[in-house]
């Protein structure tokens, strides 16, 4: 078109591209940068501070290999559940059924072995399968029927917990019997000890799980899609992400991990009990760990390492306060204060560093 002014061609003469200077350099700059690229660093700092704090308060009793590895054992179930919860929350969902699924699958692993005489490894596989299937049901309701995750998993929580009581007929399978007849169910409880430190396979599995998921979330396309779906599902869909597939994979994987937590529970508690409190409060515990770990409940932001550190922070506070002899209600109260304080510190570090 000849009618148009040719002022725009003035822009083409522009040869070099200017860019701003970095204004922050040096150690502090690097630190700020690290905080920004690594959201798990903040909960890690809080964790280390908590360990040091209780170390000063309680001395070598707390800083002993025994007590420190005890924390790992005490958080192993919540830690595994928090991994599942992280995946769901990253997609802007929430899973209230994680604890219930863990308990039900532990009951299935136990009852299938004892009631029906199925070999323990097969029962474990069935339990893992049931967990995955329950995850698939929730995932389908969220992704296809478009129901809010909160409601789906709230319903699932009640259904799974009630089914657990009904199916088990409130029967506990005793540790002694498992030991004698199906020791494979105790696999996650196998201990590796050295110099006072005790690591169970359950603890090792928890750590490995977190590392593998951290890798998958950061360095694979699937992981990027999980973040994109949580960030803005509509945009992700338009940008060519298979939103349904991603959601299904996340909910199924979360269900599988919950079942893994069920197996870890058998290893930790020895027995299989349908009334384990994990079924009732495991969800809140896992969500607490995730949120203390700096993962946004609105989806798409945060790192799974953060959730792991979040679980450890709560574990450190709980053991530390108990060892200090705090009265239970005072312990609850202080944990409440500390949850808020931990996140406030997190917030403060982020603010100062930006």
């Amino acid at each position, binding site marked *: 078109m000849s*009618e148009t002014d040719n002022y725009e061609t003035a822009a083409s003469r522009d040869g070099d591209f*200017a*860019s701003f200077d970095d204004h922050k350099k040096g150690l502090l700059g690097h630190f700020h940068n690290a905080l920004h690229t690594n959201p798990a660093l903040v909960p890690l700092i809080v964790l280390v501070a908590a360990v040091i704090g209780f170390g000063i308060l309680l001395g070598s009793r707390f800083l002993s290999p025994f007590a420190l590895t005890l924390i790992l054992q005490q958080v192993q179930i919540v830690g595994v559940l928090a991994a599942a919860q992280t995946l769901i929350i990253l997609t802007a969902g929430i899973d209230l059924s994680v604890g219930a699924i863990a308990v039900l699958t532990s009951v299935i692993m136990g009852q299938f072995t004892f009631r029906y005489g199925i070999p323990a490894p097969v029962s474990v596989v069935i339990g893992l399968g049931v967990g995955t299937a329950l995850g698939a049901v929730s995932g389908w309701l969220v992704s296809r029927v478009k129901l809010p995750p909160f409601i789906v998993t709230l319903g699932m929580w009640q259904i799974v917990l009630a089914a657990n009581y009904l199916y088990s007929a409130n029967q506990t399978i005793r540790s002694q019997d498992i030991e004698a007849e199906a020791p494979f169910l105790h696999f996650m409880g196998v201990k590796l000890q050295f110099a006072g430190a005790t690591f169970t396979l359950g603890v090792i599995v928890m750590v490995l799980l977190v590392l593998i998921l951290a890798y998958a979330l950061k360095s694979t*396309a699937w992981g990027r899609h999980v973040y994109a779906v949580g960030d803005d599902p*509509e945009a992700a869909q*338009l940008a060519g992400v298979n939103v349904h597939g991603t959601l299904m994979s996340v909910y199924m994987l979360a269900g599988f991990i919950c079942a893994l937590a069920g197996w870890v529970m058998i290893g930790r508690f020895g027995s299989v009990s349908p009334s384990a409190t994990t079924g009732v409060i495991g969800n809140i515990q896992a969500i607490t760990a995730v949120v203390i770990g700096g993962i946004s409940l609105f989806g798409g932001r945060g790192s799974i390492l953060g959730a792991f550190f979040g679980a450890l922070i709560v574990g450190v506070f709980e053991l530390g306060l108990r060892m200090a002899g705090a009265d239970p209600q005072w312990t609850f109260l202080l944990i409440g204060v500390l949850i808020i304080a931990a996140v406030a510190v997190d917030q403060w570090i982020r603010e100062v560093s930006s």
Partner: protein
Amino acid sequence: MSVEPILKGRNLVKRYGKVTALDHCDFDLLPGEILAVIGDNGAGKSSLIKAVSGAVIPDEGEVFLEGRKVNFRSPIEARAAGIETVYQTLAMSPALSITDNMFMGREIRKPGFRGKYLRQLDKPAMEKFARDKLSELGLMTIQNINQAVETLSGGQRQGVAVARAAAFGSKVIILDEPTAALGVKESRRVLELILDVKSRGIPIILISHNMPHVFEVADRIHVHRLGRRLCVIDPKEHSMSDAVAFMTGAKEPPAEAVAA
């Protein structure tokens, strides 16, 4: 019309509750051409390209790609068929980086074992590619290729989206107001890019309110009004004033343009 359109819409209808966004609309994109779509705000332009690119499923009507009827149920299917779209809303994940967004859904994996079995992404390769594409567009005020998209200015964000489409489109590229937020320099680059893509034989749909741009690059102009195609005009035979008059209803379009 003798040539078979590469992308064709017939009788498309899309309603949102009480609002009719597409009202029995037809649409044709010919091979190798740049087709501009112009029309008032709310005329239904975005709805039209969403309907042909799988982003919404039309309530009625049919879409044909290279003569074959297609039923895209999602943008992924359209993309797999070679149709790349820059939506008006840009479709970016705000918390993710520029690179992540550019490669969303078609990430590059590392060669060998790490890519095949560990499914590891080749971040350096993706970053280099992204940086190159942005440089081509002259978007050099972007200071960090790993910056989250939410920290970019509106124009920078749009530039990233256009770069993504241009880099990956194989059969049809659709741009919904690609220069709306762009500066003069950046807009020029986008126009150059459009002509460059055309010269590679790939047809383009360009939705724009910028008449000089439209008249500069378009081969044909689809005038959209009240949810349907009012007429198709040749920019060499009509003036900008004509186009605007048709589009706004101030003037009746010529009969042969309506038949087109």
